[in-house]
């Protein structure tokens, strides 16, 4: 027991300084994830796809919910994954191994949102058959929803009010944590332009805080300005 305890690495090495530059470097939570999942997709597309949905469900959902004006983020996320699957079916194994999954998936979500908006304008939705109950998958945790609504509601609404380019850039940079180079590829603009979209978006959000004069949510349990 004591031997095993002595061998354990100290956890402090993983902790990050809140104000230091390390925080802004938290860009990729799974650095080797992409390559590993690409390998699994190339080996067995359908089995690998379950891993893909597991690993990038958050990324796709977050982009669907925060970076697009989609009415139903779950529909958009599901549609985006299906588009990804259909595309992968047409790719060879070597192309799949070289994919950069995160920017590739984000691009698919943004394109799907555009298409969905165009389709919605063209034709009304028809109801599939069956009772009108909710599919199992959309039963969210009530506690989860309430907590998210409470903490994120205000900032989320302000974010939704940003111009599309800035909103997308801020979400990709600071909500899902992509690098500027990836964001530039996704937005189809130079890196400098991507950086300025992010900066202007952030400035607008800060200005909104200043106008409303309330402390930033999420940090301030018990903290007051000016004390």
């Amino acid at each position, binding site marked *: 027991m004591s031997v095993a305890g002595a061998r354990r690495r100290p956890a402090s090495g993983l902790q990050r300084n*809140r*104000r230091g530059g390390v*925080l*802004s470097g938290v860009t990729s939570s799974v650095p080797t994830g992409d390559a590993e999942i690409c390998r699994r997709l190339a080996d067995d*597309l*359908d*089995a690998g*796809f*379950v891993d893909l*949905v*597991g690993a990038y*469900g*958050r990324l*796709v*959902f*977050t982009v*669907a*919910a*925060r970076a697009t004006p989609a009415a139903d983020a*779950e529909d958009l*996320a*599901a549609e985006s*994954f*299906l588009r990804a*699957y*259909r595309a992968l*079916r047409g790719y060879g194994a070597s192309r799949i191994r070289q994919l950069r999954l995160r920017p590739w998936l984000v691009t698919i979500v943004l394109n799907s949102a555009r298409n969905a908006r165009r389709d919605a304008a063209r034709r009304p939705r*028809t109801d*599939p*058959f*069956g*009772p009108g109950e909710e*599919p*199992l*998958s*959309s*039963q*969210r*945790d009530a506690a*989860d929803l309430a907590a*998210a609504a409470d*903490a*994120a509601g205000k*900032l*989320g609404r302000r*974010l939704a009010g940003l111009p599309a380019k800035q909103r997308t850039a*801020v*979400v990709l940079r*600071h*909500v*899902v*944590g992509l690098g500027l180079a990836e964001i530039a590829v996704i937005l189809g603009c130079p890196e400098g332009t991507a950086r300025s979209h992010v900066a202007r978006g*952030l400035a607008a*959000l*800060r200005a909104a*805080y200043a106008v409303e004069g309330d402390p*930033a*949510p*999420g*940090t301030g349990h018990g903290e007051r300005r000016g004390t």
Partner: protein
Amino acid sequence: MNPRARSSIEEDLRLLEVRPPRGFADRVVARYALVAGPVGELCVAWTSAGISMADFISPGGEPGFARRYRERFGRPILPAARPLPGLAAAARSGRGRKLRYDLAGLSAFEVGVLEATLAIPVGEVRPYAWVAAEIGRPRAVRAVGSALGRNPVPVLIPCHRVTRSDGTIGNYGGGPARKEALLRAEGADLDELADLAAAGVHYVGSTATGIVCLPSCHSCRRIAPARRRGFRDLAEAGTAGFRPCRLCRPGLPRSA
């Protein structure tokens, strides 16, 4: 600008990450399982939206089924770890009404036909024209036939229970022999129905109740022979003072 506010807005943005709801992967990735049907084995595919495909397969036919599914729906599919609750029982008993189906991609007409068909009880049969009348399209009898021919979920949505009004069983995607075997396995008296049709009897009434039924309706199978009366059509039954059965709804348009 104060650096505390600066770092906090970026941290707050991190909190806007949205987690997929539980079971989200089951909405994207379909599963399939093999179940014992009344006649042979049936392979069934579903997502959390419902069952979307079923097929008779021979032993070892699962990979072929999965391939056909991917071709048709462009969706990943894997063998299920657990069978869908209620599926095995429904396949065995022929009662597929309580299961949930995902018929996205079919036309509103096709969905209507399959929905009406789902209401036909085990062991009973209905003419194609009955389905057409049920969905308020009494003249679309042939279209009903082709919609049933494209039923993506045979057995569970019992298109085998729709037969010709001349007493023959009509066509079937899995072959007429299989249709006959399915109907006999669930207790339909095909020989009696053929005899009645040959004698020009398409409706059977009871002189005790004054109610007229389709010949396979379970409520008219109990009529004592002395009280049984056959009719060629509903007009004849109406003239004789009979009213249509509310269970098998002979020739009734769907109540609005």
